[in-house]
Structures are given as C-alpha cells and as structure tokens.
C-alpha cells in the first residue's frame, strides 16, 4: 500500500493515545493491531452484523467501515471499557443473568448497543428494542434471551 501512514490522536477508553494509521486503515484494525483490543471484531465487513461496534463521540459506529483517520481527536469507547475492574456494567450483568450469550462473537456489539439504547430510553418497549438492535446479528440466534436481557438491564438501571 502506497499511501503513507500519519499519526492520529484520540481518547481511547478515557486515556489519550496516538496511533499510526494509513488512509485505508479502519478503526477496528487499529484497535486490534495497535491496542490489543479484540472486543470489536470484523465479521461481515460491510457494517451489517454489528460485531465491530465501537462508540465514537457517543455514537455507535461500525468499526469495520469507520476509517481510523475519522477518529482523530475523537472520544473512542470499546466494550472493554464498560466493566470497572471486576465489577461488570449493569448491561453485562443482565446479559449473563438472562443467558443471552452463546458463542459470544456478537455479544460485545449487542452489549454496547443496549447500553446506548438505555441511555436514551430507560423503559424501552419490545418494538423499541427490536428496532434498536436490528443492525446486530446473532447466528446462534439467542434473540429471545437478548430481548430478556435488555429488559432486565432496563429494570436494573431504573432501580439503581
């Protein structure tokens, strides 16, 4: 690849960082290759499955399509940032309790999207949940359990 990399600087999970990124590098590649963060992972490569979900400036993006240069100066949050130490985030707890995890490859994407949903809508209806999570795919098809997990998380968030 001919295009030269340049240095980008951004806030990653609360820490200021810099990375070398060529114009064709995606955010998920940089996270994986330069920061050993594997929770956002490429699967379909077209932004259709949600496995590569990363939060940039508060918005969920498909990390497999999002060019790293666009993250310059941004706030980037990955699934690894949700738990603090051994204490899981409420959404992560709910996914565990509801048995909403099978192979786990899609799970970080669902967890991040659920977190986003509950920030805007603490009491989502079934239809709200379906709409919000329609861009995430689970081939193990734990959808009924994921639905239950989102509702459980909402309950926990409201109770807190």
């Amino acid at each position, binding site marked *: *690849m001919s295009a030269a990399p340049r240095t980008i600087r951004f806030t990653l999970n609360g820490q200021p960082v810099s990375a070398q990124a*060529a114009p*064709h590098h995606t955010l998920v590649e940089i996270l*994986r*290759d330069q920061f050993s*963060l*594997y*929770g*956002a*992972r490429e*699967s*379909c*490569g*077209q932004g*259709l*499955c949600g*496995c590569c979900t990363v939060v940039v400036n508060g918005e969920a993006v498909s990390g497999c399509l999002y060019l790293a240069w666009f993250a310059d100066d941004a706030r980037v949050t*990955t*699934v*690894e940032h*949700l*738990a603090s130490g051994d204490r*899981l985030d409420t959404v*992560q707890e709910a*996914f*565990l*309790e509801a*048995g909403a*995890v*099978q*192979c*786990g*490859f*899609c*799970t*970080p994407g669902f*967890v991040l999207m659920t977190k986003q949903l509950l920030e805007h809508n603490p009491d989502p209806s079934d239809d709200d*949940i*379906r709409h919000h*999570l*329609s861009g*995430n*795919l*689970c*081939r*193990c*098809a*734990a*959808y*009924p*359990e994921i*639905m239950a997990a989102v509702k459980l998380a909402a309950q926990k968030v409201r109770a807190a």
Partner: protein
Amino acid sequence: MAAKLMPAGQVGRSVARLEGRAKVTGRAEYVHNLRLPGMLWGKILRSTRPHARIVRIDAHAAQALAGVFRVVTIDDIRTVIPDPYYGPAFHDQPILADGKVRFAGEPVAVVLAEDRHVAEEALSLIEVTYEDLPAVYDEVEATGPGAIVHDRLKPAGTFPDLKHLDGKRDTNVALDFHLRRGDAEAGFAASAHIFEHKFRTQQTMHTPLEPFVTAAEAGGGAITIYTASQGPSFVRIEIARLLGWPENKVRVKVPYLGGGFGAKLYIKLEALVAALALIARRPVKISLTMEEQFFTITKHAATIHIKSGVAADGRILARRCEVWWNGGAYADVGPRVTQKSGFTAAGPYDIDNVWLDSYAVYTNRPPAGALRGFGVPQMCWAYESHTDLIARAMGLDPLEFRRRNILRNGRPQATGTVLRGAPIEAVLEMLGERMGWGRAYDRANGPKRRGRGIAIGFKASIAPTASVAMVNLYGDGSCGLYCGTVDMGQGLDTGLAQIVAEELNIAAEAVTVVHPDTDVTPYDMGTLGSRSIFHMGNAVRQAAGDVRAKVAALAAELGMPAGSNVPIAELLRRKYGMQAGNIIGFGSYMPSYVSPDHDTGQTPNVSPFWMTAGTGAEVEVDTETGHFRVLRLVNVADVGTPINPRIVATQLSGAAIMQLGFTVTEKMEFRDGQLTNGSLADYKIPGFFDLPDAMENEIVDSSQPDGPFGAKGVGESGTFGVSPAIANAIADAVGVRLTELPLTPEAVYRALCAAAGNPLAED
C-alpha cells in the same frame, strides 16, 4: 422447562455459562485475537471459473510488489507435502488447485506478506490462464452423461463402505447408499392409494460470525496449529498423515469458537496454513472474509423423490425414497450425510416395506458438508410435507394420520434396528397439546388467512465414534477437566463441568475446563452430530468416577476409615508432606455399532441413541401479496434428562430460528456457476425482525438409559420440523403447497396465482 436435580444439585441446574463473563466483556479468547511474533498474513487467490484446466499462473508482478514475502502455488505445497490431497471420506481435495479448478471460488494461490493489505493488493496482480471445461451444477443431472468433476474416486480408507469405490472412473456419484426392507413393490400393489411427490432444498451456508481462521508456527520438526476447529483430534491426525509425521509432532490448539454449526469440522484452512508455515519458515495466519466462507463449506442442496402406498384405513404399507445430495466439488463429509440421513429418509414411521436410495453427487459448486442436522432437515422437509399431503388427500387429520403410523419403541426402524429410548409418540402428543390441535381453529376470511401445521422428525447419532477425558485434582483439591470437545457456543464446557461436579459433589463453577490442545487434552472424534453431551459426557463421568475411586483408595492407603470425609487437599498433603501431587482420573467411551449391510442397509445396531423432535407453526398469509408471518413456533424435543435446562432451551430455540432462516430467506444464488449473493447484504440470515411473534420450547419427560445422568444431545433437534411445519401451515391457510425451499412470498404468490388459474410468467 422443569428439570430434575440430581443428589449433588449440579446436574439439572441452570448454571450460568462458565465463560460468560469473558464473553460479555469482549475478552474471550478466539484465534481471531492471536498474533505470533514474525507472523505473515496469507490471502487466497480464488478461481473465477467453475470448471477449468489451469494453463498458466503468472505471479511475477505479484512477487515483485514491495512487501510481498512470497506467492505460493500447489508446486510449492508439494515441496513440503508430496501428496497434498485431503478429506474425511475421500482424499479428493487439493490444498491449492492442482492443474484444475472445480468450482468458482476454489483456492488457486496464496500471497504471503507482513501487511495483509499488501497481500490483498498482490492478489490482483496474479494472472491465471484457464481453459474452460464443461460444468455441471444440478445434482440429478450430474448422475447422467456429461461433465465429470473428478477423473477417479479416491476414498480415504476410513470408512469400510467406501472401499468398493476406490479408483472408480467416469462417475460423479461419490457414494450410493441403498436400504431394502420388506418388499416395497408388493406393498404398493396391496395399497389402496399411491402418493408420489418430489421436493427440493437449496444450498445454504452456516455463516458463523467468526469466519474461518487458522494460524500455524513450525520449527524443530514440529508444528503448532491454532485454529477455529470443531475437531482438533481430526486435524492433528490428518495433518500428521499429510506430513508423514507422528501425531506427537503436530499440536492443535483451539480456544473458543465464534460459532461452528458443522462448518468448522475436518480440514478447512489447516492443511494450507500448516504448509505455508513450513514453506515460509515463519508463522502464518489466514483469516477468511465473510464472502470466502461461502466458498469453503455449505449445506447440501437436495432433490428428494418420495412415494408411499397407503391402505384404506390410513396405514402406510410401503415407501420408496430416492435422494440426490448436491455435494459440490469436494466430498467433505457428504458421503456420511448421504448414508446417515439416508437411512432415516422414510421418516419416524412404522413401515414394513421400505426402499431407499441415497446418492452423494459431485458438481461444480462450492463443497457441502455437515450443517446442524447432518441432512435430517432436508429429509424431514420432504417426508413431513409428503405426510401432510397424504393426510389432506385422504381427508384425515394430519395429527391423527401421524398417530396411526408412528414408530414406537420396540419396533424396528427401516434399518432393522429396534427403536429404543425414542419417545416419538410423546413428542407428537405434546406437540398436539401445545398447538391446541383438538380445538377449533379460526382461519379468518379476509385477504389475510391463517393456518397451522405440524411436523416431526428423528435423527440417529453418529457412530462409531469415541471420546476420551481426563479429570485432574490438583494439590489443593481444585479441579480441571481435560477434553478435546470444543465449546463453539453451545455451552458444552458448562454442561461437562456440571457432570464432573455432580460426580465429585462440588460446585460446577469450581471446575476449570481446559481448552482443547492435542498435546494436553485426550482424543475426541469431533464436536458434531449432537454427540458431545452423550459421548464426551459419558467419558467425563467415568473420569470423575475414576477420580472418586482413586481418592477412596488414597484414603485407605493413608489408613483412614472407609467413608471418612477428609478433604482431598489434606489427603494429598499427608501423602506428599506438602501441597503437591495430583489425582488423575480417566474415562473413555465408545458405544457399540454394527455397520449397515452394503446391499440392504440392514443392521441390528445403527445408533447409540435417537433424537426426536417436532415443530408446530401458525402462520398468517396475505393472499394479495404472498407475504406471510410466522405467528407462533412451538418446538418440542426429547433431550433425555437435561443437564442444564436453560442451555437446552437456548439450543432448541436457536436451532429453530437458524432453520427458519434456511426456510424463508437463505439461498445461495448462482448464475453460470458463479455465486451472486456471497455477502450478508444479499444473503439474509435471521435478525430481530425475522423472529416468530411467539416461540415456545418444550421437552418431553424422558431419560436416556445409557446417557450421562440420562442426558442426550440437543444441538440439532430444534431444526428438524421447522421447514415442513411452516409449509404445512401455509397449505392449511391458503391451500397451496410449496415443494421447494426457501418458502418466499414470491413462491407463495406464484402458487396462489397458479391455483386461481392465472399462473405468472417465469423470469
């Protein structure tokens, strides 16, 4: 779903998945995460032709691109693997195309580079000159004269029933399986009614969200392969065979898998990546893209002819089935699918006169292998659609017609094997009850009509296969389970830990399950065919029992009175004088099996256990557009005694939803042998909006006598009846019968127009 707790309270409990925490935090280990020092990335150049001779591969420009380490073709592979052909049933698949390509998408060459974008760019600089050969895509057409995919058949020698095919020429039939029971022709002659139908299923793909990925590093006369595989023991044995090395020089390590569903069995990328690491003398990793998965392994398209003779009282007297399996260009495990599902082609019915022919057929399509059900969903689609057609034609209630013909325990199945531990009747009755079958049903009158349908199916387990396990108590009494069974998302680590825990009277959460590593974990045939909880579960239970016996022996050796409850850490401390030592228990399990007779398919013992399941569906069909919605899907299964009820329920509903995708949206589309929808943008797998409005999972009260704590496999059962139940419900709603999958709105609308006497023009 209620379950019985065993005395120690570990089996029958919905233990949360042991690895759940690692998965929700994004920190679970997958091969995807692995980086090896000095590693090269490989990218695969794939054939653009469905069937062609390779005249020339010009890699000069690619080799000259800055950053390219090396371009590799089959000639290079031969320098490390002289006979570079592999496969579980036939040694028919070359590690890279060998003078010929047999499907569009077949690997032809590999570029190695430190930067995978450089490797990808270099692919476009390789020029391959092809000379096209006639191609064949249809499984029935391929059995006639015309294009031949392989010059001669090369059975692997693993299976005795393939030996007679060795060296056979000028045929695309890789295996012909025949079953003859009673006298089918006499049965037809004695029948009051004859019914004959033809059904088809489409080629689909597993679509694990973690695409195939393998890395390897070699050195010092040994190789380590890190791979997303469902069968590490098979990979070790096959790579050792290809290299001519002993097994102890080939190490295969498998962390968690991001889904498998049968795709990640046998050899996929492993032989290629192992050869590349040996050629490059550096670690190599290949991660496929989603598109490339479609060119790696798929589910068989099939054509099924089925003919039944029925007496006036509704008893099925004879059945004849012919099944053609579209195996694509390489056999993979297709010949096993052909035989194992072939012998259940007549369905879970008690029929005295059965004639079955099942053919594994080579075509110029991507290879087909095992996919969640091992051919049974295709068979069930045919026999349960056929069953409904017969019932309706004879004016019999579909449930009552099934009840009259159902195969009951103690009666011989088509192979002659007497059915045991298969509560088919209980499944049918519970299905009827949950569907409220006896009650009046409102089909509605307007443009939207409702209907309901049921279907039942059964499956034999895979035989003969073995599992070996080891349970290790360390110096402080904590416990590790060592086994080669892969947790690909089905929850097996947790289930097996529960078995150990029940046997040792400890908490399942306290058991560590060691990931498959062939230098550490003992042999297992493979994580497939819903065999693991039964086969490995039995081996694990034995190993834990062995530990218990050894603990008791140690206590006796140390002079403790029998039954004294001294902690294991204390026993070891007394023996060694410090915290030291291990107590290691072993278990191995291989159920008995008798191979079916070559000419008649008859055997007294075809399967260690049977899986039985049924599906009920309610649909609403829009008669103006053909669109339909599944209002309700009821899954009923016999799982023996569930080890972990919640995981069982998740397996049942997950399997049903996956099969729903294969029923309504998923189909690999080809034009002139070229796949035209190899991406998730065009190949639609189920998402949140594709679920039935309501879904219920039920298990019947049952126990598998020789299963661990009464358990049996459950991973595939939820798939069996989904497709025919929905087709039967559509027929019930609007009176049209679809005989080809997928069941699309267009197909329904076309059928409605045809039924109204206004057929639409074809494309």
